[in-house]
């Protein structure tokens, strides 16, 4: 559509997540490593002088979740952003004009969702609450299923996937994408956020050095 839409959609999708990165991850290089690599706890412990990890499990869950979320967001948005640079907008086959905007919001919500899933899943593993892990997997499947079903929703694209179920929307004024995909995803995201807050705040003030603990060495 042009540079305006390209930058607008990319900042909508990645802005909050990159903001989180900037304020809570970038200052601590160890968190950056976890963000990129997901799990490097053995290496970190090996590097530390006193054998104790400089980063808490909650921080690691949060950062790892954020990393996964950014990757998933990148995968889903890059295609769209490349096409957003062209002169055309979605709509010639009857799809909604707000496709780019909706996808950008969807990506933003998915990044948050991944972050919260990460925290919940780690918390479930640590405290051995299996229902938390099952809930994460279950909501993962539901959100993915929602995404694929909405893609098969009515559109006059002759080359698109054919023979799909048409989703009826309880709020007909809004486009199907909003109430049938974005809505539930936002709901899951909010619920997951609440549960992850129960699990413990992942934010850590800068500093927090590991004091020497002789018991750990020998």
């Amino acid at each position, binding site marked *: 559509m042009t540079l305006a839409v390209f*930058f607008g959609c990319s900042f909508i999708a990645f802005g909050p997540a990159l903001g989180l990165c900037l304020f809570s991850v970038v200052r601590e290089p160890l968190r950056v490593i976890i963000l990129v690599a997901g799990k490097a*706890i053995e290496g970190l412990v090996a590097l530390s002088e006193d054998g104790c990890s400089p980063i808490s499990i909650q921080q690691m869950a949060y950062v790892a979740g954020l990393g996964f979320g950014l990757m998933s967001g990148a995968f889903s948005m*890059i295609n769209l952003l490349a096409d957003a640079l062209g002169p055309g907008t*979605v709509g010639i086959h009857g799809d909604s004009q707000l496709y780019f905007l909706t996808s950008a919001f969807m990506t933003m919500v998915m990044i948050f969702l991944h972050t919260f899933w990460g925290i919940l899943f780690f918390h479930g593993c640590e405290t051995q609450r299996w229902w938390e892990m099952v809930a994460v997997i279950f909501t993962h499947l539901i959100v993915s299923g929602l995404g694929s079903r909405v893609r098969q929703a009515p559109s006059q694209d002759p080359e698109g996937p054919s023979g799909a179920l048409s989703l009826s929307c309880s709020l007909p004024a809004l486009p199907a994408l909003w109430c049938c995909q974005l809505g539930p995803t936002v709901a899951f995201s909010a619920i997951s956020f609440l549960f992850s807050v129960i699990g413990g705040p992942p934010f850590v003030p800068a500093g927090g050095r590991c004091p020497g603990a002789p018991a750990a060495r020998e």
Partner: protein
Amino acid sequence: MAAGAGWRMGAGERGRRGAETLFRGLLFCVLGCGFCWGNSVERKIYIPLNKTAPCVRLLNATHQIGCQSSMNGDTGVIHVVEKAQDLKWVLTDGPHPPYMVLLDGELFTRELMLQLKGSSRISGLAVAISKPSPAQGFSPGLKCPNDGFGVYSNDYGPQYAHCNWTAWNPLGNGLAYEDFNFPIFLLEDANETQVIKQCYQDHNLPQNGSVPEYPLCAMQLFAHMHAVTNTVTCMRRSSLQTAFSLNPEEVCDALSDYNVWSTLKPINTSSKINPLDEVIIVATRIDSHSFFWNVAPGAESAVASFVTHLAAAEALHKVPDVQMLPRNIMFTFFQGETFDYIGSSRMVYDMKMDKFPIRLDNIHSFLELSQVALRNSSVLWVHTDPVSRRNDSIQPQVETLVEALINSSVGANVTLQEVGQSQPLPPSSFQRFLRAKSIPGVVLADHRTSFQNRYYQSMYDTAENILMKYPEGLSPEETLDYVTDTAKSLAEVATVVARALYQLAGGTGNTSAIQADPRTVSRMLYGFLIKTNNSWFQSIIKQDLKGLLGDELPQHYIAVTTLVNTTQLVQYVLANLTGTVVNFTKEECLNPEKTPNPEKEMYVYTWVQGSRDPNSTSRVPFCVQSTVHLTKAASPAFELKQWGSTEYSTWTESRWKDIRARIFLIASKELEDMVQLPFLLDLMLQPTVFTLAGTTDSALPSLQEDEACWRIPLFQASLL
């Protein structure tokens, strides 16, 4: 301990390196994903237009003609112009310039195009081909084709130069020779045109006099041409690139191909023929042109003529005593005559420079077949050159020539009439030979003064133009063998030509047995005008040339690649019609020099794949012995590197990278700006949120100390 620590350090190091590689791999995949073609989002946005033909840029010594688009294509809001008043919206009234005009074929006239050319509100044009052809005729060629490259000039017949005497193509509007700075495409498929019109009606029509609202239907045309100004400039740039660059980026190519020629009596092509031998040259052109690139059906302007020529050659070869005739006959098919006589000027040049087996002095007379399919009440006009006829040695020879023709037409449904003796020659290859030497010759045509062809060098010069009609419900095989009236008419012309040639070559026998076969003419017309992929053509070509025959309408543009389909097909058809089948094996046929025989040097051997038996799937190939040769048809201007020459043709075609067209919707500027709003809100909110988060943590000092070191019992245990 130190070694252990080093080992642990190594593990961490390896873990980090692994993570880095993984990250790079993921980044590559992500970027790769973004650039894959045909992805579903792209399908939601764009509808590609596949059945289109562009207008490209051609250059000659002094000018550039054709069309040009911007580097990344030209976009514009579609507006359908079905009547002249619709143009006002595009030129003055419309509120969303620039516009991409979708024009009906009937309105594609010079006046309208000049109006569009002068406007800055046009970003491109798409012309929908008109079915049926426009009733008033349409020719984008010049009124005076190949002016300045024929024989008439200020030194030779100045009263005939520049079509002072008669405009040969009065319907010619010269559109193909104009220079446009926006892209122009031809929409060949009526279904695609309907899709575009539907999109226009859904989004671009003003409702009740109000301005049409966004989103609007738009079209983007990509046709960026690399060459500019003229041939001198583009060839200079190309030669600099070739000379100095490791990766040369040439910008244009000369139009070139091959001429096809064959002799009635075989000659040794590696040496020159005896200076006392006389040759009669029969000539036709085999190419045409139109406004759009590679759209050149050329039915009346080229195909009918060379098909008649091929039929006459076949008829002559069937005569038993032709090998004993005193004079030889050379059947010549010139390529590139549309572009200032590329083929014939090159042959004359080769003859003058002694690079051709036959010299100009060997030429006894010249017979050319110009446009012959639209004869009015069966009259065929005989054109001669008035200036050379003033010569006392040429005049009687011309009279003999005309007499032979008139004698041959007795009994055939062809009435030969001479045009006025003071009338000049129409545009013909014969004019290039006259430039070099005064030779007696005639040009046969179906028109007396201006062309009968109302679609000369246009996309409408198709089989319908020469009145080829087939009954309904025939299969392709039946259509191939059906003899149309056009075929019968052309066969009669071929009969007259063959008989006249026999007499001119010194034949003394009875000519009434010489007859051209209407069935062969009809099959050739079908193959060259409707579908090349038919059973007859399949049986006469070589085995490894499957890509030569196609199912779409054949086009006869010279192009820049060597050996276009037309040249090759003419070569194979001529070999089949005039050659003989010999009993050689495949090895002998493909390598005739291995079994030396003085006869073999005079002939050309071709291993053709033969016809398919109706019961089996395999073909029976055989060897054809013929005298068909190819010689280069490239303008001498490029051999001599005289790129600004006014003596020889200097036509070149620009190079390009990407030619395509697509339609889509464009959104208003307001919607694009609206997309920025959430981002700006987020930008304002984030610092607030995180400042609050920071202050919350500092209000819990007790947590700081306890959480200063985090022991992860599980992992610690594994290390100890």
